[in-house]
């Protein structure tokens, strides 16, 4: 198991847990949570610099970029054009040509606009980006993203920040079966068992933000997610027993005293 590395495009990661940098009580707590999680990839958002208030600390002061790969996202973009523009800005602000691509279709659910997502993926792949699209848990959309050149597909488990857990396990299973690229369940995790479940279904990785940042103790939750993802991965590789309707004794039925 020691060599169970996580490969996306040309990069190898030690951890199959990818975590966000938003909504923590403080940057210091975030840094501790990152450490506890064992993750080696974190997502960040691209936003205008606050010109009027330059006192704000820089997020990057709290991310050890020698250990953590920084993945810019296009969160908040509602069109392919906006997402492509934001991805290009993220590339210039950062150190890589990777992007977590989001094209949102609806404000209340934050569900992706899959049509625009496929279009933006195609454009960015042509420009040399390594594109990791956040998508619906739809195997057909995932296939289209893969055909468009996505380096991984990232189906949602449930709406962003909802903590509802995996709402459509069968789709995640089918997406894994269909995909030739890594499948990362992105969004919807509420607690450790959700992450384990995603991995047991065959996900290659899990991406989360709110489940850790919004927990009462984000550092402890980050640590729990480290084990949860690992446990789910090991269980998947180990091969679970088939489900049966009735009992099968674990102890021998022969040699019982008094029979």
């Amino acid at each position, binding site marked *: 198991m020691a060599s169970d590395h996580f490969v996306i495009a040309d990069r190898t990661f030690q951890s199959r847990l990818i975590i*966000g*940098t*938003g*909504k*923590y009580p403080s940057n210091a707590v*975030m840094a501790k949570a990152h450490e506890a999680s064992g993750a080696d990839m974190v*997502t*960040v*958002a*691209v*936003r*205008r*610099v606050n*010109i009027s208030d*330059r006192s704000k600390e*820089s*997020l*990057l002061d709290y991310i050890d970029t020698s250990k953590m790969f*920084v993945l*810019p*996202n296009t*969160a908040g973009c509602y069109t392919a054009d906006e997402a492509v*523009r934001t991805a*290009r*800005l*993220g*590339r*210039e*602000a*950062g150190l890589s040509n990777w992007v977590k691509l989001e094209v949102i279709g609806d404000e209340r659910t934050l569900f992706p606009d899959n049509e625009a997502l496929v279009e933006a993926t195609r454009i960015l792949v042509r420009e040399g980006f390594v594109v990791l699209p956040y998508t619906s848990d739809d195997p057909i959309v995932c296939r289209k993203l893969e055909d468009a050149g996505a380096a991984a597909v990232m189906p949602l488990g449930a709406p*962003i*920040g909802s903590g509802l857990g995996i709402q459509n396990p069968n789709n995640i299973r089918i997406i894994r079966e269909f995909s030739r690229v890594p499948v990362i369940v992105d*969004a919807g995790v509420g607690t450790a068992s959700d992450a384990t479940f995603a991995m047991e279904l065959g996900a290659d990785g899990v*991406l*989360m*933000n*709110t489940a850790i940042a919004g927990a009462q103790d984000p550092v402890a939750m980050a640590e729990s997610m480290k084990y949860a993802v690992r446990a789910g991965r090991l269980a998947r590789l180990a091969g679970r027993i088939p489900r049966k309707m009735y009992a099968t004794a674990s102890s021998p039925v022969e040699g019982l005293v008094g029979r």
Partner: protein
Amino acid sequence: MNITLNGDPLDVPGPVSVTALLESLAIDVRRVAVEHNLVILKRAAFDATIVHEGDNVEIVNFVGGG
């Protein structure tokens, strides 16, 4: 001169290079991306790119997100 910086009007002495503009705003050039009149600049172009009256400049950086 008046420019539009991150969507808001700003009065700065100029014309000015992007590097000098960032310096005057106390912004670390290594941590931002700059778009000048809708063209995203390579960092190497910050010195040579001059911001003129009426130009539109966007300066972005990384913030927390998921």
